[in-house]
């Protein structure tokens, strides 16, 4: 007999069917159409669009921006997690809220704030022009906007895990005379290495895929300040649909790889890691 807390078989089948339908329509169809559109005229045109010099320049720039932004947030995130999880101080709650703040800020606003500081009519604009330093419409602006939108990833994956693990091992290390950095490197980080890797991967995926924030600070100069997502937009607006979807497919693959890696790390650590956003 069916237990009273179980749903009737017909209801179960109905709900599973509905959920699968939702998943196919909402999640699978958008993913599928990216690849279908990219390969609409065959593999050759799609590959040619990726081999285009402007596309290659966009790939290089995206890799460069991520290579600078991700380590900044990894170091900041580890420092923040170590301070929050292993020490007591007033204002800790507020600090955690502030670290998560960038996730509730629109990507466009995340770019806007740097234009207000460093743009031609921004607070530091005149000084920067005098000293011939360009931040907005150049690499530094792209990096700053990317660091902002990916800011919380590493910290928020590490903080709950490091809090759970307590402080006993660190206290033992301290009793044996180890300093802060040695304790962090030898004791704490080995305990959280998979979560750290997951945080870095999620941070990297968002850094490479970010659109709104970098769009505001980029200036959209082809071959110079165009990242991959911005290149997708340019191609699309020029009706180069195969090219736009080919670059988009490459970005979608990056997203899928990241999801796969996250699933693998969750399996390795046997715990759900906090979601992407």
């Amino acid at each position: 007999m069916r237990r009273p807390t179980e749903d009737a078989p017909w209801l179960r089948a109905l709900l599973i069917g509905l959920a699968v339908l939702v998943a196919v329509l909402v999640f699978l169809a958008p993913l599928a159409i990216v690849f279908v559109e990219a390969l609409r005229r065959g593999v050759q045109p799609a590959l040619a669009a990726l081999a285009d010099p402007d596309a290659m320049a966009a790939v290089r720039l995206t890799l460069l921006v991520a290579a600078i932004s991700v380590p900044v947030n990894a170091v900041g995130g580890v420092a923040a997690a170590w301070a929050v999880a292993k020490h007591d101080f007033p204002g800790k709650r507020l600090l955690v809220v502030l670290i998560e703040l960038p996730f509730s800020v629109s990507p466009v606003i995340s770019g806007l704030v740097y234009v207000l500081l460093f743009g031609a009519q921004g607070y530091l604009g005149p000084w920067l022009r005098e000293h011939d330093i360009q931040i907005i419409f150049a690499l530094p602006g792209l990096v700053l906007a990317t660091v902002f939108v990916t800011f919380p990833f590493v910290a928020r994956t590490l903080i709950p895990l490091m809090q759970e693990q307590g402080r006993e091992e660190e206290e033992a290390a301290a009793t044996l005379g180890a300093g802060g950095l040695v304790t962090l490197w030898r004791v704490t980080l080995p305990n959280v290495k998979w979560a750290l890797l997951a945080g870095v991967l999620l941070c990297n995926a968002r850094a490479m895929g970010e659109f709104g924030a970098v769009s505001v600070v980029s200036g959209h100069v082809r071959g110079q300040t165009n990242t991959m997502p911005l290149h997708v937009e340019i191609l699309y607006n020029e009706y180069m649909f195969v090219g736009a979807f080919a670059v988009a497919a490459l970005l979608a693959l990056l997203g899928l790889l990241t999801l796969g890696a996250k699933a693998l790390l969750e399996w390795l650590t046997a715990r759900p890691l906090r979601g992407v956003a």
Partner: protein
Amino acid sequence: MAGRALPGFGLSIGVTLAWLGLIVLIPLAALALKPWELGAAGIWAVLTQERVAAALRLSFGAALLAALASLPVGLLLAWVITRYRFAGRKLLDALVDLPFALPTAVAGLALTALFATNGWFGEPLAAWFGWRIAYTPAGVAVALFFVALPFVVRTVEPVLRDLAADAEEAAATLGATRAQTVLRVILPALAPALLTGFGLGFARAVGEYGSVIFIAGNMPMVSEIAPLLIVVQLEQFNYAAAAAIGLAMLLLSFALLLALAGLRLALRRNAA
């Protein structure tokens, strides 16, 4: 209480505060200051321009609608993922994260292709119901639904999993029908998580840009979202006006999130 303090606090908090201050706090302070160059009257004039007011209405309205629609659909997905065992459950679970992992420009392109009049969804919707989704405000809501849905699933899921089976069993033993148990026991227990998921989904949706601008068509007064208007103002070097719109968006969505937090607190008090 833990033993004596661990070493390394000064260095780690120093790095943290420098990182937070330089990247987040100082730039956000610039956003809070810049609009006042226009004066209070000037800010009001910017925000009450017809085009700006229409964009703010669309962004907040579509985000609320999308977050609302995410509640039943998200609950369905969370229920099926946590309560049933079937082939493909893991895959279904993984697919829910897709909107998180897909870059927003890619999602925008994909949704536009799906809902265009010759697209997989757009063509039948136009032929059967005469609905046009792409390049209309409905397209904005559809894109925001895609963005908001995973937040509801992922906040409800852990609560649903941990919901004590004994409460359900007790209700059933006391003669409650399954429907009564779901309505009187399970849904109230999920309410705080549903509110949280709603808030997270809304907060993300209201500021969303990349997923929306391709499908929206961006017609002023009709399908133009507030973040796009910030970009337009910046292109005309109206920094203060752009900042005014940005600040208004942030404050409005924080006010809504605060109200949700208050509601959640009231729910918890009622339950206790």
